[in-house]
């Protein structure tokens, strides 16, 4: 009476990042068909650039959000950090090229402080990420509404260069975003802190048992996430030419970045996920937006499509389920 198998065979688990890129290709194919039937060329230079530009800002924010979600937390303060960073940069630069470095540093410094505040409230005051970052976000929003009546400051032409131009179809901003994504990817794979971010998200108990200082990775994740939002703010300042108190909330980057991260296969509970999966999720949104604009889709229906796509995609991942115990017998009929 032999048991099922002597050596457990390794079932090829389709990695969720692979699924995201399959989904992206499917969306591109469908998009191309739709766009071409509407008389436009999906693969034209302008369209590619429009898609890639659409990815750059959301990409920066989503990469930062991935880190935070990997630790099992969440960051709802990103829109206000984006706006604050764009204002601080534009005002410090005041159109003067040699103020650029100073403007960038000031913006990123305050973004880092906001991230630190998020991290400390989550780890030390033991406040759930949702409420902690919602609170910090509101604090920054109050500051923005009170001190800024409209766009402020101005960005010198040299800095606008980043936002406006590109190498062929690929805008500089997208190159910067992908470079930073690679940096964060390497941070996650190549540094102890990166490994510990996964560990803390996977299980706080096991991490403590292995002697990790569990608060540190969460704080670092929140700081990097806010700094990435700060960078997104700088990119927007360079594209807009001015700082704006509403540019962050205009893009709805808080909920959209979380949706892109989850679409990319990262699970909300933390512990599993990948930067490149998130980039795939961001690309799917960018292609969707570009296609819907190209076929002059009614703007109200755009949100309907986005809502349905988010839920459907996540249902596909979780639908694959997790095998609980290794079955010993065929579940159905077994020959006596």
């Amino acid at each position, binding site marked *: 009476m032999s048991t099922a198998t002597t050596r457990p065979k390794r079932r090829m688990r389709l990695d969720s990042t692979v699924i995201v890129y399959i989904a992206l290709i499917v969306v591109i194919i469908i998009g191309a068909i739709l766009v071409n039937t509407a008389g*436009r060329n999906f693969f*034209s*230079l*302008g*369209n590619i*650039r*429009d898609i890639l*530009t*659409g990815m750059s*800002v959301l990409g920066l924010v989503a990469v930062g959000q991935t880190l935070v979600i990997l630790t099992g937390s969440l960051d709802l303060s990103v829109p206000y950090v984006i706006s604050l960073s764009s*204002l*601080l940069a534009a*005002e410090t*630069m*005041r*159109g*003067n090229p040699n103020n650029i470095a100073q403007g960038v540093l000031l913006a990123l410094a*305050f973004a880092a*402080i*906001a991230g*630190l*505040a998020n*991290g*400390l*409230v989550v780890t*030390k*005051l033991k406040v759930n990420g949702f409420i902690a970052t919602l609170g910090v976000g509101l*604090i*920054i929003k*109050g*500051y923005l*509404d009170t*001190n*800024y*009546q*409209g*766009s*402020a*400051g*101005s960005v*010198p032409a040299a800095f*606008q260069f980043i936002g*406006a131009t590109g190498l062929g179809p690929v805008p500089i901003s997208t190159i910067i975003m992908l470079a930073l994504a690679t940096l964060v990817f390497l941070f996650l794979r190549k540094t102890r802190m990166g490994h510990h971010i996964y560990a803390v998200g996977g299980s706080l108990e096991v991490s403590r048992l292995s002697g990790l200082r569990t608060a540190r990775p969460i704080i670092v994740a929140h700081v990097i996430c806010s700094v990435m939002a700060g960078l997104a703010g700088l990119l*927007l300042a360079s*594209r*807009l*030419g*001015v700082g*704006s*108190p*509403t*540019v962050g909330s*205009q*893009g709805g980057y808080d909920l959209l970045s979380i949706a892109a991260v989850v679409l990319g296969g990262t699970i909300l509970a933390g512990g599993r996920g990948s930067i490149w999966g998130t980039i795939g999720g961001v690309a799917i949104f960018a292609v969707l937006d570009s296609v819907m*604009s190209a076929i*002059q889709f*009614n*703007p*109200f229906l*755009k949100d309907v499509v986005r809502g349905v796509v988010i839920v459907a995609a996540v249902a596909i991942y979780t639908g694959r389920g997790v095998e609980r115990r290794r079955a010993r017998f065929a579940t159905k009929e077994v020959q006596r």
Partner: protein
Amino acid sequence: MRRSINMAATVVGIAAIVALAGCTTDPSVTEPSEGDGTTEEINWFDQAVFDTQNAQRDVVPEGPEGQPYLQYIDAEMVDTSQYKVDGPKKVCFANASISNPWRITGWITMNEQLKVLQEQGAISEMETRDAQDSDDTQIADIDYFIEEGNCDLFLISPNSTAAMTPAVERACDTGKPVIVFDRGVLTDCPVTFIHPIGGFAWGIDTAEFLIDNLQEGDKVVALRILPGVDVLETRWAGAEKLFAEAGIEAVDYFTGADPAEIKKIISDELAKGDVNGIWMDAGDGGVAALEAFEDAGVDYPVMTGEDQIAFLNKWKSTGITGLAPVYSNFQWRTALLAAQKIFAGEEVPKEWVLPQKPITAEDLDEVLAVNEGMPDGHYATFGGEDLPGYPTVWQERIVP
């Protein structure tokens, strides 16, 4: 020991938040800007523009009688023969959004006007991209049109003033004609900039009306939709100045155009003391403000709203002393008519200042007659009475 370290770290964190909130240099203090002249922080009140708009209010507009959407004030015409086009006339429209009733009414009117112009062959086609209220998206839309659109004319309704300026300049550099309407940009490269007289005129009309109907020391509650939109900010800047000069006590609130929020604010104000006048920078939710008075059992204020049907109907039924300033919704027609003129090489005003005559108690009945059966979110100055779809298209309010 361990506990104290945790607590110390937390205190540092909280201090960081407070620092973030408090200590940065208060930007509204305008330092001498050594940059290339752009002021530190745009202070909305500009005496010069205030005076010109004040004057323009009384100028009799030139142009065809009975067609306000073609009339202009103090126009300095510009020759557009260089842009005369015989072949395909494609218009690329970069729209800020259709996320509020005023813009939806305009968008419906523009599409009806487009049908007429397409039949006449004045415009071959119009491609629209909607930025859904995002500066970043609109910049991408404009760049897309420059790259891909093979547009013969750019029509832009900017999402915000300063942010759109670089993109509009890039559109001008293509050599194709550019029309900007509704909100302005900080460049004069477009062929024409179409807009009603402006915010200050709105502020003056409404403030003068309230001042005439109130005594010194009376209280006016100003309901404002949101900060940072130049069109709205100039309205309040103008009115605020006149209220101060007339000794009217004016206090302003941001409502996000949410009627529930408006009603709460008015109820709180009525709880504090009586309110004699209501000023609005946009008509959204005006009815809720009046209902707050009804619920509090207090007699109605003197009120300035907007030419939104909901407000006009409420004004008619309650008989309050009111005024409905307008932001000439028909400018959405003028935009396409200007395109027609440019394609035909006819001259158009460099700055097409459309008339902005508020609706007074006398013309209320006539205006309501023209807008019979229109939905609440409709705007009386839509100016589409003579278009084929009138009135069903606006009554059913089908968004193209």
